């Protein structure tokens, strides 16, 4: 075991001049049992660094379940549109019926006025005839 080489690598390591390969070498060496006394102090560091990337996320990541949601939104939208159209058509039908009823009422009323007017005409006609006839029978002036 060439611990001189290790000491050189260690120097480079603290100067941030080692490659990933060399860093892996350091991690491997310091996991051994036969680390010399004067280098032992570095062992915990490299042992930790080697093991630290085995730590895992415990719970699963949750994503929103997009699939079903979209289908139900389009169903809801279709139902909504149907109801809107239905309501508008019903309202228009009702309005037409009300207009027709109003029209009929108006015609009836006008007819009543007209027939009363005609009754009036007949009365005036009779009154005229009555006056003519009365004048024939009774001489009013001298």
């Amino acid at each position, binding site marked *: 075991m060439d611990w001189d080489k290790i000491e050189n690598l260690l120097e480079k*390591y*603290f*100067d*941030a*001049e080692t490659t*990933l390969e060399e*860093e*892996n070498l350091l991690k491997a060496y310091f996991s051994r049992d036969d680390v010399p006394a004067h280098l032992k*102090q*570095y*062992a*915990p*560091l490299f*042992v*930790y*660094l080697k*093991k*630290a*990337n*085995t*730590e*895992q*996320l*415990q*719970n699963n*990541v*949750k*994503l*929103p*379940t*997009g*699939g079903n949601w979209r289908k139900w939104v389009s169903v809801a939208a279709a139902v909504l549109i149907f109801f809107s159209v239905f309501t508008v058509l019903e309202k228009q039908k009702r309005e037409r019926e009300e207009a027709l009823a109003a029209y009929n009422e108006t015609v009836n009323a006008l007819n009543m006025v007209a027939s009363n007017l005609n009754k009036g005409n007949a009365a005036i006609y009779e009154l005229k005839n009555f006056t003519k006839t009365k004048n024939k029978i009774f001489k009013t002036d001298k």
Partner: protein
Amino acid sequence: MNQSEFLKRVLPFKDKVFRLAKRLLVSVDEAEDATQELYLKLWRNREKISGYDNVEAFAMTMTKNYCLDQLKSKRAGNLKLVHSNYRDKNMQLEKQVELNDTVSLIEKLIDTLPEKQRMIIQLRDIENYEFHEIAEMMEMEQTAIRVALSRARKTIRQKLIKTQQYGLG
């Protein structure tokens, strides 16, 4: 892109995202929340990212930015980031370790570094990214990264030796 295609592309690096978030936020719960947040963002942008070469780098950059924002707003709210001593969910790493407690000390030592140095140690020494990849994720120049990395490693060495001098190693 449907959900299974999407997951195939983004799930491979979920642990790296989580570990980076944990390095920055320290708390496992917050790191899990940050990871969940990131994946929601990736899903919402799935059409955009389907054309990317390197979704992983993009995801790590987004994670970095999200976590740094969290830290900034915490500081503004005067909340202290205390590394709790209670045994949290993530005991598995420490169980794997056969050496003494000094190894688990290293994690805490790294967490005392400034955020930028913490991230660089995480991305280089733990996740084994190349410098050009780290430059892309951290939005920094490679030379600046090497300088910060050297500084971080030397600080760790210094604190490690000091700890062992006190007979804790």
